[in-house]
């Protein structure tokens, strides 16, 4: 690795060195969907273009030159991979979630990590609100009713339930959770939350465990990330505490909810409804849900708007450029 004498060991800025090699684990869909080329200020190493299997490719001289890794949510960055690429100082992911990256190992090795920052949080928050209103007010169900001619044939559709005045519990008050809270307040909802620890600058009531939160709410919105603690955190007990009229909305990760239990409760009428963008085994959705009118289903596309994807592409390039120009990352993943 070259270093410019004037910067006492720090790498030269982007315009004064050859394009930094960046290991691209998979072509980022955000760029291809928008038909946006990757910037030529970087030399992207593309394992899928090599005849070698990934493991062998990582041992090659080409791969070992990599100074950064660009990944999406689909391809894991493991401790083993990092061990084989000692030149890597930065991992950039296009996803909001981090469960596919060994962040602890990155810290140990002094590798910086950048994620999707705020590029997605508005769109995800918007969908969470959209799903909640849809379930309560039966929007998709009544739209289907109209389109199959039942309004003129069979009469009025069933009544829904008012959103205003509902007690809504946000699970995970991060970037997205806070935006969901702000939106729901405007509808007259009473917002409370559960998080790893109480947030000092926030006035919403805090509940230290998610079951207690559910007991005191009419709806839960799951906004947290997936990790060891949050896996199957929403248990049968939590859902029962929400009650027969209770609604759960999930825009986090499918495995945060014990899906099998949730499906059973919905089918049995022990849970009022669900709005789901994520599932435990995508793109498979439990068959039983397809027959229910009180669930609203979305194919994990909460972030797929023109605007969010474009912002994300800008952010990825911005992070890479900043890092290699010795400037602060735009969306660093910080220790909490």
């Amino acid at each position, binding site marked *: 690795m070259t270093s410019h004498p004037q910067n006492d060991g720090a790498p030269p800025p982007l315009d004064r060195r050859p394009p930094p090699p960046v290991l691209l684990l998979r072509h980022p869909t955000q760029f291809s969907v928008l038909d946006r080329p990757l910037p030529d200020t970087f030399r992207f190493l593309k394992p899928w273009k090599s005849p070698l299997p990934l493991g062998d490719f990582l041992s090659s001289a080409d791969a070992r030159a990599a100074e950064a890794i660009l990944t999406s949510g689909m391809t894991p960055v493991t401790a083993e991979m990092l061990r084989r690429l000692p030149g890597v100082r930065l991992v950039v992911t296009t996803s909001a979630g981090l469960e596919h990256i060994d962040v602890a190992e990155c810290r140990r090795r002094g590798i910086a990590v950048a994620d999707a920052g705020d590029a997605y949080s508005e769109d995800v928050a918007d969908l969470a*609100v959209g799903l909640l209103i849809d379930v309560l007010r039966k*929007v998709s169900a*009544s739209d289907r009713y109209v389109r199959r001619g039942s309004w003129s044939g069979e009469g009025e559709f069933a009544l829904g339930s*008012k959103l205003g005045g509902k007690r809504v519990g946000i699970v995970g008050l991060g970037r997205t959770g806070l935006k969901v809270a702000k939106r729901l307040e405007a509808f007259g909802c009473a917002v409370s939350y559960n998080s790893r620890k109480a947030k000092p600058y926030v006035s919403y009531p805090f509940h230290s465990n998610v079951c207690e939160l559910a007991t005191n709410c009419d709806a839960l919105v799951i906004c947290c990330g997936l990790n060891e603690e949050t896996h199957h955190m929403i248990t049968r007990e939590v859902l029962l505490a929400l009650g027969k009229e209770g609604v759960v909305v999930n825009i986090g990760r499918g495995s945060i909810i014990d899906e099998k239990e949730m499906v059973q409760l919905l089918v049995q009428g022990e849970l009022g409804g669900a709005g789901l963008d994520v599932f435990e085994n995508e793109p498979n959705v439990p068959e039983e849900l397809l027959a229910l009118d009180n669930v609203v*289903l979305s194919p994990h596309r909460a972030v797929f708007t*023109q605007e969010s994807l474009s912002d994300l592409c800008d952010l990825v390039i911005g992070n890479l450029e900043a890092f290699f120009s010795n400037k602060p990352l735009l969306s660093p993943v910080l220790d909490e």
Partner: protein
Amino acid sequence: MHVRPPKNSQSKDFLQMEGIGVLMTCPMFPYLEQELEQRFHLHRLWDFPSRRRFLEAHAGSIRAVVGDTKVGADAELIDALPGLEIVATFSVGLDKIDLGRCGEKGIRVTNTPDVLTDDVADIAIALMLGVLRKVCGCDAFVRSGKWKSGDFGLTAKFSGKSVGIVGLGRIGSAIAKRAEAFGCPISYCSRSEKPHVSYKYYPTAAELARHCRILVVACALTEETRRIVGREVLDALGPEGVLINVGRGAHVDEPELVAALLEGRLGGAGLDVYENEPEAAEELFPMDNVVLLPHVGSDTVETSTAMADLVVANLEAHFAGKPLLTPVI
């Protein structure tokens, strides 16, 4: 301010109201029927083969009419009920009531404002999210099994899009408040500019449509606002624009709207009301950039109950000689 009448009022006139003839124009809400039945002598217009047959039998005994957005109290009905004193509509909209005729005859009219404001505003936002984010389309995509063979396409971001409101009354203001929480810049048009409002004012719907991405109709239906959204407004909204209607079907030139959507001259539409309910612009059924709801703006258990209580309370107040809670005239 929400007016919340006491339930099951126990005034001493309560029992004496049993003989008062109240005509309900069509089925609207079982709870309302029950409450009216308990207090008055309730007649259901739909129990009769025709309006004429009902009038022949009972015209003279009717002192109150309870109507809604489907069947109200037109001049013909008003004239046929010599004992009519009050029309209490199970709605905030008054377009199905001949207010002029009521005024001439000294007949009181009440409606149900405020209690339904939140629900209608919520549906307006639901329609915006539904059209831009294709929430209903995504749901259909998953249910059909198509997700197993491919991903859904891109949708449009809602947060931050400019929203133009036609009519900044109770409902329009409630819509504005919600849209603001999504970072949407708000503008509006109205009969006249509102003095203490920070949103940008435009004097006409067309001017408003030129300056916003999402146009929402939330005004009352009057002679002036009939077809307030026509070709000119739709053209101004354009191929990226979205029309949301939570007012009345008659606010929009429906054939023009359908043509604009089918031809791609308008980006999308979210409709809760139509010119000829319950017929709902069938040509739009195959489109994925529209959301079509069966006039459910205020259709929640909570709000319907509050509306029903308000109708009953207004009638009780009238027949007890007390001030009406929510009089129109």
